[in-house]
């Protein structure tokens, strides 16, 4: 049954017991994003290391469906404490997976628990739910002054395509800003 494929146990667990929920200070930037189609909303804070290259903390307060809530919970576990550059690669992989309509076989080494959201990609109406927290994080990251150390030869390779995808989606979900 497709329903169980989408609502993996990992998702239901994170929905019932979300990780890192609750806003914390200090923080570098705070953003508020909404999903205009359903009214789900999130306030998310990012704190970076002093040199701006590492994500030290992600905290949030959110209301929404199981997919949006579990997704941001999983995200905070995946991205906190890692270099910005690494996190952007994970975010790009997540985006590619959930937008793939089921055609992308996710890399568990990169996405870890977030591979549980692969089933969401088969339901286009729910993709925005899964991306709500990730897009808020990306916005907050930029506002907090994240420093991404990308050398020229990397940006001309396939990773550059990923970066373009991320930018495109940020601008579409940008309609969700309040």
């Amino acid at each position, binding site marked *: *049954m497709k*329903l169980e494929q989408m609502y993996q146990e990992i998702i239901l667990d994170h929905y019932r017991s979300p990780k890192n929920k609750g806003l914390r200070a200090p923080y570098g930037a705070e953003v508020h994003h909404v999903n205009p189609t*359903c*009214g789900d909303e999130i306030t998310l804070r990012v704190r970076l290391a002093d040199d701006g290259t590492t994500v030290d903390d992600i905290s949030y307060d959110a*209301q929404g*469906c*199981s*997919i949006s809530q579990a997704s941001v919970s999983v995200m905070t576990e995946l991205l906190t404490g890692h270099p910005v550059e690494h996190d952007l690669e994970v975010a790009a992989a997540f985006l590619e997976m959930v937008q793939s309509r089921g055609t992308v076989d996710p890399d568990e080494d990169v996405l870890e628990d977030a591979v549980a959201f692969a089933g969401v990609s088969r339901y286009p109406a729910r993709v925005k739910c899964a991306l709500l927290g990730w897009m808020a994080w990306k916005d907050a990251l930029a506002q907090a002054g994240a420093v991404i150390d990308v050398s020229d030869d990397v940006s001309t390779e396939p990773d550059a395509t990923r970066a373009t995808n991320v930018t495109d989606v940020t601008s579409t979900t940008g309609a969700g800003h309040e």
Partner: protein
Amino acid sequence: MSIHLDASPLDVQAIRPDFPLLARTVRDGAPLIYLDSGATSQKPEVVLDAEREFVLRSNAPVHRGAYALGEEATDAYEAARRSVAEFIGAGFSEIVFTKNATEAINLVAYAMGNAVWAGAEAERFRLGPGDRIVVTEMEHHANLLPWQQLAQRTGAELAWLSLTPDGRLGLDDLDQVINERTKVVAFVHQSNILGTINPVNLIAARARAVGALVLLDACQSVPHMPFSVQQLDIDFAVFSGHKMLGPSGIGVLWGRQALLEVLPPFLTGGSMIEQVFMERSTFAPPPQRFEAGTPPISQAVGLHAAVRYLSDIGMSHIEAHEKYLTEHLLSRLAEVDGVRVIGPTSVVERGGAVSFVVDGIHSHDLGQVLDDRGVAVRVGHHCAWPVCRHYGVQATTRASFYVYNDVDDLDRLVEGIGAAQRFFGVTS
């Protein structure tokens, strides 16, 4: 008042074959249970047949072309206008075809804004600082944002009637909200999210007393109950074709003849003119003044067929059928622990749009479980976000029905709610 019905006056099993879509399955073979007619209705084959016949045999531009096809197309288009006029007890030239109901409301709001540059005949449409526009807290965004925008453009003030705990309009402060400075009152006949049917003439009487214009959003009433502008003390009404078994791409504005004659245009261009010079132009009389550009011709033909289909069933039968279904669903939902209806819980002055929340399950998740079982419902804020805010809910799940639904459909919905409660582990 007793409205209890033991049975529906409609033979749904005889109606359903007219709608081939209803026979299909979704999501790995689940029979489709369509409960989202408040958003858009399904179409009977006769509507598609009429459109197809027109396009394949008589398609041509209307109101021009001195050739046979042009005459046929014009006749078909204007016959649609006549059928819609008769359907709501209106005059022929009081019916304006628009793209949809949203455009119809914008037409009135923008035309009122344009009254600033029009002649003295448009005086009563003019708004400025000190004037007031009144709406209600239960409006669809389509009947809220155009008025917010008009208020911003003109400096007029926006005020609104609020909601009561049982899902109705608070009318205690009617005389204060609709004050002497009010120029227009725009409100919904039947709420798309709460199902509430508002007391049109009571509100309109107050508007009349202060000389305000009255616009009625009839999107959820014209398709579902007998509706006559002769029995309603209003100036404008709007509704859409696709919610009444007709095609998408066509909406209707009804306006009182005397008002349409002095209302400035909204969209300008071809077809809406009288004379055109390089420096200025004059406009055609209504309804043409408000139908700039090529109108939705085949859609009008389809809408004509939909009106015929609805009339053949009988609008009072449809109203009784939906009351019967509404009563059934409300009583079934009342039996389910953890379900709360957002809106009136009795069928008195209430139609067939039933919104509810289920404790512990977000409406998106509920909708997903229902979808897995073939049950199509609307989830979210239903383009009435202020209503959700008022009742402190993030989103609701809404079932809305029509001529092709029966009690089995509603029972499938209730079973699905139980399944979702078990799936998400919130069964008490």
